[in-house]
């Protein structure tokens, strides 16, 4: 997980505040698992912005990798100014990856907004492993956010396995991704994977729970370092919160809060509490 200099190959404005950044960097692109992320220095080290920002790796091809991002604040706004040829400090790939499904399982991939990138990475990994039994349900609010679909649009433009959903019905299914999934129905052994806003992850986890479908989610917490050094990125351990007195006694208080950058960002959905107190989304 070295710190490395990535060269900007492309920084494409996809509209609606969504952008696609492609970098060349053999060090980072070398061995990336689906679900892993990078910490990008959004400005040169001696400018006022301090902390790096975490982004999922959407695709890797040869020594090129890409991230999809939304301009939501100081750091991401700086990223929109990155020019072709710029060299950017990037730490990664970081974190864990999604677990591959069993051969008989259908992998259901659910992505919302800028939570879609890890699902693109996972679809790529499934294809590479010869696991063609997958279905993706990807959603955004409306046509303005269409750019979020770029990963699937470019790879699988007319593929029945990919279902697009919008809240306003302007593209594809009208409604959220879980509704789009249930609309097609859950048949046979299934394993679910999700990334997106907390409310969406909760809905996915609830649905998976009801249907006895194993489920993994990728969470996006506030990260200071991305490598386990600052302990800022925590998410609550469900066993600790819901466990009875005896269960809790058998655990270390240290294990109440799990580091999302090291133990995650991918977790079994029943392992963690999917609630950020409304702080992020």
């Amino acid at each position: 997980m070295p710190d490395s200099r990535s060269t900007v190959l492309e920084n494409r404005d996809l509209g609606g505040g969504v952008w696609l950044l492609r970098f060349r960097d053999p060090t980072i692109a070398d061995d990336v698992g689906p679900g892993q992320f990078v910490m990008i220095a959004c400005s040169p080290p001696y400018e006022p912005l301090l902390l790096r920002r975490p982004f999922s790796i959407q695709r890797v091809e040869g020594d090129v990798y890409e991230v999809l991002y939304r301009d939501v604040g100081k750091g991401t706004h700086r990223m929109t100014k990155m020019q072709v040829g710029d060299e950017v400090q990037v730490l990664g790939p970081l974190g864990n990856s999604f677990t591959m499904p069993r051969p008989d399982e259908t992998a259901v991939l659910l992505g919302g907004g800028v939570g879609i990138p890890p699902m693109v990475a996972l679809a790529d990994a499934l294809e590479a492993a010869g696991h063609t039994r997958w279905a993706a349900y990807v959603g955004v609010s409306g046509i303005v956010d269409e750019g979020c679909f770029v990963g699937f649009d470019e790879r699988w433009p007319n593929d029945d396995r990919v279902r697009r959903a919008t809240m306003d019905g302007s593209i594809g299914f009208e409604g959220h991704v879980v509704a789009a999934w249930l609309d097609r129905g859950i048949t046979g052994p299934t394993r679910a994977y999700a990334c997106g806003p907390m409310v969406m992850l909760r809905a996915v986890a609830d649905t998976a729970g009801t249907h006895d479908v194993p489920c993994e989610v990728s969470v996006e917490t506030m990260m200071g370092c991305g490598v386990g050094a600052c302990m800022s990125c925590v998410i609550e351990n469900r066993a600790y919160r819901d466990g009875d007195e005896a269960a809790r006694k058998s655990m270390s208080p240290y294990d109440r809060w799990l580091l999302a950058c090291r133990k995650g960002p991918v977790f079994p959905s029943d392992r963690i509490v999917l609630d950020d107190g409304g702080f992020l989304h």
Partner: protein
Amino acid sequence: MTDLSVRIGDVVAKNPVMLASGTAGYGPELSGGLDMSRLGGFVTKGIAVHPWEGNAPPRIAETPGGMLNAIGLQNVGLEAFLEDKVPYLNRMRTADTVVAVNVIGKTVQEYHDVAKGLRGCDAIDALELNISCPNIKEGGIAFGTDCVAAAEVTAATVEGSDKPVWVKLSPNVADIASMGVAVEEAGAAALSVINTLLGMAIDLEKRRPLLSLGWGGLSGPAIKPVALRMTWQVSQACSIPVLGMGGIRSAKDALEFMVCGATAVQIGTANFANPNTAAEVVDGMTTWCDERGIERISEIVGTLNA
């Protein structure tokens, strides 16, 4: 080439650059972006006698030129520390890097117990007391804001330990020099100056704090002027070595602290922006001294013309 080695009491460091507590985990975390053997020293995340769970998230917020943190000292506790973390620290010692363990507690007794528990542990050169913790016996007021409590916890730790005890002062006091004097008299071997400054950041639209705790400790370049002033004041008032920190991200920053009286420096928040900062600071110091014909870096300590 300039001799970069410095003496912090009985502890000799090959160079004056260390990583600050809480910003580099227990060692291995930063090793992907930094060659740890370049470091003069390393201070671990705070360790208590029992594991602590820490605060609910969000635990950090970025602010202009700095960041707020309210991690709440989540830590594995002494037993797991000795079992799981010490082997890596041993490796650092082999690379000639000074290792200090940051010690936290809720009572004087707890600090003492950690010190005792670390007796005989060869991987460790020194203890660094974080006295910014709330003293639960005294209604939660931090040990570090009261001279008597600070001296008491220092004396109890020194008594329990077979290692030099460095005390990390809180800047959230009216007169930091008198705190330094009080803990020096209680047996401290060195003073770490400074811990974070209490601050707050809010979301205007939601009208709520950005940190779940409400407020947190400010660190990073924004606090450097405060830290420099306090390093100067403490080093003037005390005769034991001072480790300066607060907002350092370049060799020039670090050298300023040394000129203001710091024998060594620690780097915290800058590690997050650039994990290689400490190595770059070491290189920059060497160049700066070479260019000026300075033979030993320790010559510049406290040479401020004031």
